[in-house]
């Protein structure tokens, strides 16, 4: 794939290593091993997560883990139903999506279709700074600024809550949505826009009814990847969303996400043989499978629905 785009003259004959030095052959194998490390990383993740989870699932059935509605791994009586953690994760993710998807898409439309060159050159890097800020910083911001502001509107809201964490996470993932969507819109050919204008459409109609549908695969993929990122985010929710596993749709309550549970348990010095220690790998396995399937779905959407212009 990489070679084909640049090759007018085939250098393959030189590349096949005939007459190359011993040094050259060794180097080639070393580089090959470097590339293989990525495969071993994936295998390592799978083996560690499954290997450690097996110990857990020999004591708690998979069915109980996936369908149980109480998560009290440390307090007696212990219960290992992961649904409260999943519910907490979904609640925060939905709140983040409510902020990030419309704002990110609108930002992308503005940058790709409306912004004059000068404005775009200033605004785009500023939006992308948001992606470079460490997540602990967002956690600090949610806890010390956003939560007190929200408490003015919701006086009964407690300090650790899903709303504040979800809103700040939404701001955090705006650049993920906007960058990918903007790339997709920019690659829509100008002729489509010109045809739309020639039919008498206004700028808005061209943007929403021609450019956005034409770029839809990229936009949907950006939504999916941003949601996957929100599900896997750890520090922000550990700091701001609380440590109370509970199934609720009320964003003013304190909840706990899967990632926050892993972070919470890792802070204690649980013995490596104990069942609480193994829970973090079982929760990690579920988290890995959720984000992996979303990422695969995102890449699939791009490949399956991409219009070749």
């Amino acid at each position: 794939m990489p070679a084909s785009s640049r090759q007018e003259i085939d250098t393959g004959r030189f590349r096949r290593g005939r007459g190359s030095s011993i040094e050259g052959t060794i180097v080639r194998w070393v580089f090959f091993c470097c590339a293989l490390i990525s495969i071993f990383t994936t295998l390592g993740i799978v083996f560690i997560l499954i290997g450690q989870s097996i110990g857990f699932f020999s004591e708690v059935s998979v069915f109980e883990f996936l369908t149980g509605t109480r998560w009290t791994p440390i307090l007696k009586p212990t219960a290992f139903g992961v649904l409260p953690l999943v519910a907490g994760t979904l609640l925060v993710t939905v709140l983040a999506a409510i902020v990030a998807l419309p704002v990110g898409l609108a930002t992308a439309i503005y940058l790709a279709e409306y912004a004059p060159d000068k404005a775009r050159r200033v605004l785009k890097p500023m939006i992308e700074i948001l992606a470079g800020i460490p997540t602990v910083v967002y956690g600090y911001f949610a806890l010390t600024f956003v939560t007190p502001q929200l408490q003015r509107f919701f006086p009964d809201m407690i300090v650790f809550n899903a709303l504040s964490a979800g809103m700040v996470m939404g701001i955090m993932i705006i650049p993920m949505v906007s960058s990918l969507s903007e790339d997709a819109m920019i690659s829509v050919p100008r002729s489509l826009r010109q045809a739309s204008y020639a039919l008498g459409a206004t700028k808005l109609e061209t943007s929403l009814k021609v450019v956005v549908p034409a770029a839809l695969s990229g936009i949907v993929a950006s939504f999916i990847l941003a949601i996957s990122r929100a599900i896997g985010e750890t520090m922000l929710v550990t700091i701001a969303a609380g440590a109370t596993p509970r199934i609720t749709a009320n964003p003013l309550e304190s909840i706990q996400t899967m990632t926050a549970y892993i972070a919470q348990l890792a802070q204690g010095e649980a013995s490596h043989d104990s069942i609480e220690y193994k829970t973090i790998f079982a929760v990690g396995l579920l988290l890995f499978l959720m984000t992996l399937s979303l990422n695969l779905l995102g890449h699939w959407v791009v490949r399956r629905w991409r219009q070749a212009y």
Partner: protein
Amino acid sequence: MALYNSRFNPRLARRKTVGGIFYGVFLAAVMVGIIGLAVLLAQTLIEGLPWLDFGFLTSYMSRHPELAGVKAAVMGTLITIAFTAIFTVPIGVGAAIYLEEYAPKNRLTQIIEVNISNLAGVPSVVYGLLGLGVFVQLMSLGKVVLAGALTLTLLVLPIVILASREAIRAVPNEYRLGAFALGADQWQVIKGTVLPSALPGILTGTILALSRAVGEAAPLLVISGLVYVTFVPGPLDRFTVLPLQIFTWVGRPQEEFRSLAAAGIIVLLIILLSMNAVAVLLRNKYQTRSED
């Protein structure tokens, strides 16, 4: 208006008004991100700046907020990232060279490529579990700097590989052909021609990837937990890093510790800003050189 057929009603004025309204909506959306960023920075600076002084940078952690500092955390971050860079650069560049210059078009290559893009989407906390399982337990390194650096290496490798591949791909093919024509073998072509031309791009991408590792807290929290470090750690010592130190302070209920967290954030952002500045300078220098 008489020119229009009665069935053709463009309602142009109304459509233009709607267009104007939406223009405002789009602009407002851009401002959500930018105002969010501005408020975040303002809040941090207002709360943190009064606590930021020389003593803060040169003191270790303390139970008394006015005596506490970030020395152990800053040194921990610098040492961990230095080791991460030592591991990441050769492996990442090696993998990128293999995929761009050597790899045959076969199933294995395809699997490696798909795998790398999927690894880039794995949550960082999962890398923490990987590091905990492999480096801390299996290899019995313990919860030390080296285990943290190796974990961060695996975390940033996909980003470094992707960036390095882009830099290598940007080297014009004429350079390779010219070198081949002079009788160089493939490794000589890479060593003498491709790598020197791609180096600025590789460095820029690597620095940006490492700056992501500087801000990571979750994987290191999983590996090492929270420790009270009052020394400059070596590679086999327990350690803390700046984001974890900030996390510890944010978690304290007292107002003073939250201000310390803000001061710590300022130090962290300054480190990230300098890394990004270096990356941008490198890129600009490279761009002007390739134009003449």
